[in-house]
């Protein structure tokens, strides 16, 4: 039986992790490679890197990070942020990432999903979706709308329709981020996650809102998510991946317990 995946997310700017992270051990808290290795060794099932480097000239720094991560951890990892073309995808994948995540570039130009899937296979292409609850409207029948620019720009696209379209274009997975829940640590957006995950064939990673292990249990059961993204709850040392997994296992959620 397939395990539910627990996926730490690291924000990287110009080659350094950005969140103030309280590690007790001898880990360089600014180094994404060391952090990835720490999470790899302590039970993470996969790692997501999100490159928030603003200037495109400094993007190649991320390629070097990816290369070093690939030599240090032996679980899948994906890279998102700033990927706008098949060429950008190729660089990241050749450096050793398992998957690339595309978000606003896909909203602006959906062709990039099918081009990427054709070039590298659907299993490499994660469709990242930033979603806000806006209530049911004529053009937003699900009540959830696709947004970009960190939630500042509404795109007039229905989230459910976009998820299904992304799957048809060849995305192999969806990373579903609720902008409403993001950063609240009060729990994932269960209704949105369940709606999307129950309507597509491909796996859905829930993102945004995790604060306690119970939040993960809820999104992996009621929310029907296949995987859960976590960030601050582990970066600030409140929980370890192992603690979260023990809680999930004792509450009937199948997780990988041997690493």
């Amino acid at each position: 039986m397939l395990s539910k995946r627990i996926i730490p997310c690291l924000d990287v700017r110009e080659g350094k992790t950005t969140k103030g992270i309280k590690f007790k051990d001898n880990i360089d808290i600014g180094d994404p490679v060391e952090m990835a290795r720490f999470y790899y060794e302590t039970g993470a099932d996969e790692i997501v890197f999100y490159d928030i480097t603003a200037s495109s000239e400094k993007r190649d720094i991320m390629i070097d990070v990816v290369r070093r991560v690939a030599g240090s951890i032996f679980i899948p990892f994906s890279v998102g942020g700033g990927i706008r073309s098949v060429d950008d995808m190729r660089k990241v994948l050749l450096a050793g990432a398992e998957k690339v995540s595309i978000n606003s570039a896909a909203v602006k130009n959906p062709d990039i999903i099918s081009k990427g899937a054709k070039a590298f296979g659907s299993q490499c292409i994660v469709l990242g979706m930033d979603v806000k609850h806006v209530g049911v409207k004529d053009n937003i029948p699900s009540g959830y709308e696709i947004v970009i620019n960190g939630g500042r720009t509404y795109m007039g696209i229905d989230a459910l329709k976009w998820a299904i379209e992304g799957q048809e274009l060849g995305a192999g997975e969806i990373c579903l981020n609720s902008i409403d829940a993001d950063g609240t640590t009060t729990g994932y957006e269960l209704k949105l996650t369940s709606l999307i995950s129950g309507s597509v064939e491909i796996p859905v990673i829930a993102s945004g809102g995790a604060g306690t292990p119970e939040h993960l249990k809820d999104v992996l059961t009621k929310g029907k998510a296949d995987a859960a993204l976590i960030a601050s709850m582990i970066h600030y040392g409140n929980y370890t991946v192992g603690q979260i997994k023990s809680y999930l296992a004792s509450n009937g959620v199948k997780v990988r317990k041997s690493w």
Partner: protein
Amino acid sequence: MIVIIDYSAGNLTSVAQALSHIGFQCLVTSEAGEILKSERIIFPGVGAAGSAMASLKRTGLDSAIADAFRMGKPILGICLGTQVIMGHSEENDTPCFGIIDGLVRAFQAEKATENGNRLKIPHMGWNSVVIKKEHPVLSGIRRDDEFYFVHGFYPDPDNSEHVLGTTNYGISFASVVGFENLFATQFHLEKSGRPGLRMLENFCKWKP
């Protein structure tokens, strides 16, 4: 020298990195001559069976691999590499190598349920392996170890003797197959953490 076969079917960086991490040198090659000279062979791959077989035939790598098998060189198949050593794949209705007789079948979305919940296709993520037959490459693998899978098709050997391990995903399917000097996994052992690296190391030392 250990060679990793490059036939434009996916990214080989991770296999090479994993080998280097456990202290083995390797050569990534698409030359038939290098394969025939090698000590052992890793045959990975992601993508579709049809284009993979077309590429292998065009480059003559198909006969080099078949020859290397007959010469008794240890061969490790991974994911798509494991599927194309079977007889025939339902994916693109593709005739394959036939080193192991049997079909490569598609997961049936409508049949794939677990406790009444619809299962997603492809099978993507961590799952366990029930060992059916002891094998030197499986040495040290524990019952609760899990491995990373990404696939929509699975091998189904005709002879159950060729099934070394099985995995449950709606149905029970062969996730580890083997025959003489061939050992092959449907999962990505290069992306399966400690137990995957252990199997890779076992393979590098295996003397069939």
